[in-house]
């Protein structure tokens, strides 16, 4: 087992939380883990990448080599393209189809970004988590839970779904567990 994962988005989207959820689930499954992230200015809307390496062998470096990721989970199409530095034709790229307008960024349509991304890998999964979750619970803050559930269902995140769910419930406040459960189960359907 070896999985090199990049989680990407911009500051405030929950990139670091997703990474923590995955890392802790992997720990409870007995794997070696290295997770690295960037703090600081990213909280205020800047690009953000988090590298997670899961393996049953010893992990040397925490940063993934150019063109060597197995999976990229992008919470936003523009950041998905930026993370293509770590993609190769076999990398699965899961993109949250975010249509809300970005600030200070020229408007590039998700379609045109996805066309560019396809030049790096054809294994692209697109999920409209914001729209689905908005209809389901009215709170787009739950979208990341949907994305995790979706990645499990599609078998691109190769971890145990119960461990991921446990890891999510450890992280979120009790009052949000119910709505997240609804979203998570919907994604797994």
């Amino acid at each position: 087992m070896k999985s090199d994962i990049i989680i990407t988005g911009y500051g405030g989207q929950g990139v670091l939380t997703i990474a923590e959820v995955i890392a802790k689930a992997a720990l409870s499954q007995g794997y070696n883990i290295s997770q690295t992230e960037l703090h600081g200015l990213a909280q205020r809307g800047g690009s953000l990448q988090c590298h997670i390496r899961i393996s049953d062998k010893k992990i040397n470096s925490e940063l993934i080599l150019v063109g060597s990721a197995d999976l990229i989970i992008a919470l936003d199409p523009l950041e998905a393209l930026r993370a293509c530095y770590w993609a190769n034709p076999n990398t699965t790229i899961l993109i949250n189809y975010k249509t809300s307008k970005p600030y200070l960024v020229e408007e590039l349509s998700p379609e045109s970004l996805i066309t560019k991304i396809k030049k790096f890998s054809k294994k692209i999964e697109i999920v409209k988590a914001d729209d689905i979750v908005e209809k389901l619970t009215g709170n787009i803050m739950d979208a990341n839970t949907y994305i995790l559930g979706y990645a499990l269902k599609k078998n691109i995140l190769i971890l145990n779904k119960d461990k991921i769910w446990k890891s999510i419930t450890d992280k979120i406040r009790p009052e949000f567990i119910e709505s997240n459960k609804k979203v998570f189960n919907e994604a797994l359907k």
Partner: protein
Amino acid sequence: MSKEVLSKEKRTLLFGNEAVVRACLESGVGFSASYPGTPASEIGTVLAEISKETGLYFEWSTNEKVALEAAAGAAFSGVKSITAMKHYGLNVVSDSLLPLTYLECPLVVVVADDPGCFSSIETEQDTRWYSKMGYIPMLEPSSPEETMDVTKKAFEIAWKYKIPVIIRLTTRVCYTRSIINLSKIPKINSIGRFEKPINYEGSCSHTVLGHEKLLNKIELLKKLSEKSELNFTESGTGNIGIITSGVSYRYVKEVFDDLKIKLPLLKIGMSYPLPDEKIKNFCKKLKKVLVIEEVDPIIENEVKCLTNNLEVHGKDFLSSVGEYNTEIVLHGISKILNKKFPKDIENIGKQYNNTEIEPRIPFLCAGCPHRATFYAIRKIIPDAPKLGDIGCYLLGSWKPEKIEDIIVSMGAGISLAHGVSKSTNKKTVAFIGDSTFFHAGVPALLNLVYNKSDILLVILDNRWTAMTGHQPTLTTGRNATEEAKIIDIAEIVKACQVDNYASANVYNMNELLETVKDLYSKKGVSVLIAKGECKLAYLRRLAKEKKNYFRFEVYQQNPDLKELDNFKCPAIFKENGKYSIDANLCWGCTVCKQLAPSSIKIKTQ
């Protein structure tokens, strides 16, 4: 965060910063003090969280130098103590740290360098130079696991040799989370007995003697470095070797695996004093050596001095600038081996570099009090030079705000504005945050008054040290661990005897504009205390209390909306000349409603 640091399991996942705290607990540290600075901020944040439960004293001090001095006082009292800061925090601290080595203070100083400047606007400096200047032992872990061991080792060295020890972390070590083996936490000893480290004799001759004694001590530490398991070799084939330190060691190991090679390797974990003999022995059978170290060629230069007839490479193959990663190290190793860089990887890199990808830069949050202040200053004082400082409001020097002309270092904006004002005969503007004002602003303010400056100083009081993760400051009403006095900035300003001062609520735009106009029109030192709590902190409190807040919406496209172009809120969008507000981003600060009253109203659910 604290849950993992206090784990009773045999192993847990910890960041490098958290590993420092766990190692402190396992080493029986009783005193700690810090001033927030990323990438080291979480060391203090976690110490604050665990302080009460463990009995390990922690304080957020008013600046790094104060923190170091407090920690030194505890060390002189027989209590194990530590202080942590970011790399340029050490510039502030150095005035006290260097004499503390002469005074044999057993102190551990954690310094986090930031190669690549992910969260540093001042410099990309290499902390290791300080060791050479101040004779300060330096340990460099390459991972969170090593950080745990190295921190414990640092306390051993500090106490055995009676000397401050620096642990040099880098961003990558601070912010990597990996599995750490844990030991038991002993009882914390936070009370000791003060002992004078020196008998002053009425002259400064002890300083020269202290210098000599220190040099002798470094000789002893050199012997330790020769034997230390922190400096180790790994065998390999061929006559080309690698010497490396810090996180680069891990990239080297990755490259060895990727290329299926194994070169002789020397890993330096104690980079001052260096193990000269170990280095010479390692190099003896080699023809070429590549030194792989982030930032400056410190080990490389030493290796060049220590060896003859050896081809030493380093910064001629690898940059002194930015953070290293596996591909950079792969380039360096390929070069010294005369191998081609792997084609497939090179092609991906080329394709990526040829793809146009728009940057996404950070900006002030919607509802941020600083945006309102910037708007008012821009409106009333469009052309005076405006000097910035360190904090969230440094984003005011970037687009879209572009209001601050220079950012230098903590507290520097005030005196820069003073110098510009004296040299241009123009009333200038300086911005400084509350925490930065307490850190280094007060002496600069007194200087303005004493030397009759003509300046408007804007103190942005958002009640938090926000940029580094919302640590409390002197206006918060609490310190690191408990409730504390709220220090009234207006009282300080008044006591400094400035010529004019006033406070204004930044979310009342008319009041703010009038106050700015009045203060700027008056001669002499004018101070505006711009009051508005950090919206992130405020909203987190609302969420905890399960309270909601109003959001706003555009309900009519009237001409007054045009004024919003000057306000630059990230929640307000303009498409084909029509304005709208993203309700997911709006935090209800009300400023847009005040600027465009006929077009904006409270959003109906």
